[in-house]
């Protein structure tokens, strides 16, 4: 089970690897090839930037790869999957020896996405950052503001508490 919200409909990305000579896209095999390239790059760099739709698609595959790899490198299925998704074979060691122990006790997903601002006037395509949690790089938002003490948040927090205590008692809210 994936631990983050996914899109209802998969993106087809039929021209993920460009066009063939006859003018048609490369279809599902090309899509998978592009996904392997992105997953490979993410496992090596731990933080990559790119078009939002490609990053979002590759995110799910990365999560699934990490979940399957959690079965260990003795498992044939896990090894086959890792062998398919990681074209650079030095990363297979990284996957089983670094990433799997890192996410062993995580209760959340292992990746995180951020949206980058567009340059005016912008278009329909967004640029995004996709990163693995626990990476050694400086955090994307270094010192985020703590807004929990702002008036609106305090009121909302207490309203939530009231609602929960009331619904626990069975009294109508």
């Amino acid at each position: 089970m994936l631990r983050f919200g996914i899109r209802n409909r998969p993106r087809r990305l039929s021209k993920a690897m460009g066009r063939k000579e006859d003018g048609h896209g490369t279809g599902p095999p090309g899509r998978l090839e592009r996904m392997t390239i992105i997953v490979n790059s993410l496992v090596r760099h731990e933080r990559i930037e790119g078009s939002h739709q490609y990053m979002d698609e590759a995110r799910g595959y990365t999560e699934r790869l990490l979940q399957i790899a959690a079965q260990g490198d003795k498992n044939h299925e896990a090894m086959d999957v890792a062998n398919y998704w990681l074209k650079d074979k030095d990363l297979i060691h990284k996957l089983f020896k670094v990433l799997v122990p890192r996410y062993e006790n995580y209760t959340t997903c292992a990746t995180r996405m951020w949206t980058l601002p567009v340059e005016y006037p912008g278009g329909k395509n967004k640029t995004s950052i996709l990163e693995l949690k626990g990476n050694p790089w400086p955090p994307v938002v270094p010192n985020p503001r703590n807004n929990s003490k702002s008036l609106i948040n305090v009121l909302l927090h207490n309203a939530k508490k009231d609602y929960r205590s009331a619904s626990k008692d069975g009294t109508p809210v």
Partner: protein
Amino acid sequence: MTNLATKCRNVIRLLHRHCAAINESLFSKSNGLHPALALDVAAPPSFKQQPSKPFSLNDLFADNIFWAAVPKKRRSYAKKWTRRFGPDKIRKFMTPRINLVSCLECGTWHERHSICGSCYEKVREETKAMQSSMNPEEFHYNHPRSEVAYVFHGEDANDHPDKYIVEVDKPRPDWWPKHMLTKGHGKYS
């Protein structure tokens, strides 16, 4: 007749577009022709480096200059101005943006759903500096098989047992969050 006129105009347009190349091939010094009609500008470096050959019409055909795609029909003024300033452009440039917020750190405007671009710029540069401080052979072809610790100037490498140590040739930046340098703070510290 009109067709012939159009073709002639296209050829003239092509010649005009590629006049620099033709000029070079016609009046290059090695050919011994008089450069009186040559353009009085410095030739781009690509032309200088090319070995000059004697001019022949075959070259024009071979270089696809003659067969390049050109507009066949004149675009009317109505269509031209609609393309430039029509409803599409009005929607794109003149609708007010209501999803902009200003960054609390630096004041740059960005969309509400996005992070601040100018604040992320320094993070990106720092990340690149850290990545380049590792041996590129190792980073790109033989990745370390343990967690990597980046040790800046004035820090002790012994704080990171069982980690692959990479030394960075500069002090740690000021804006690096302090809570990431102490142990035992978070859930997964």
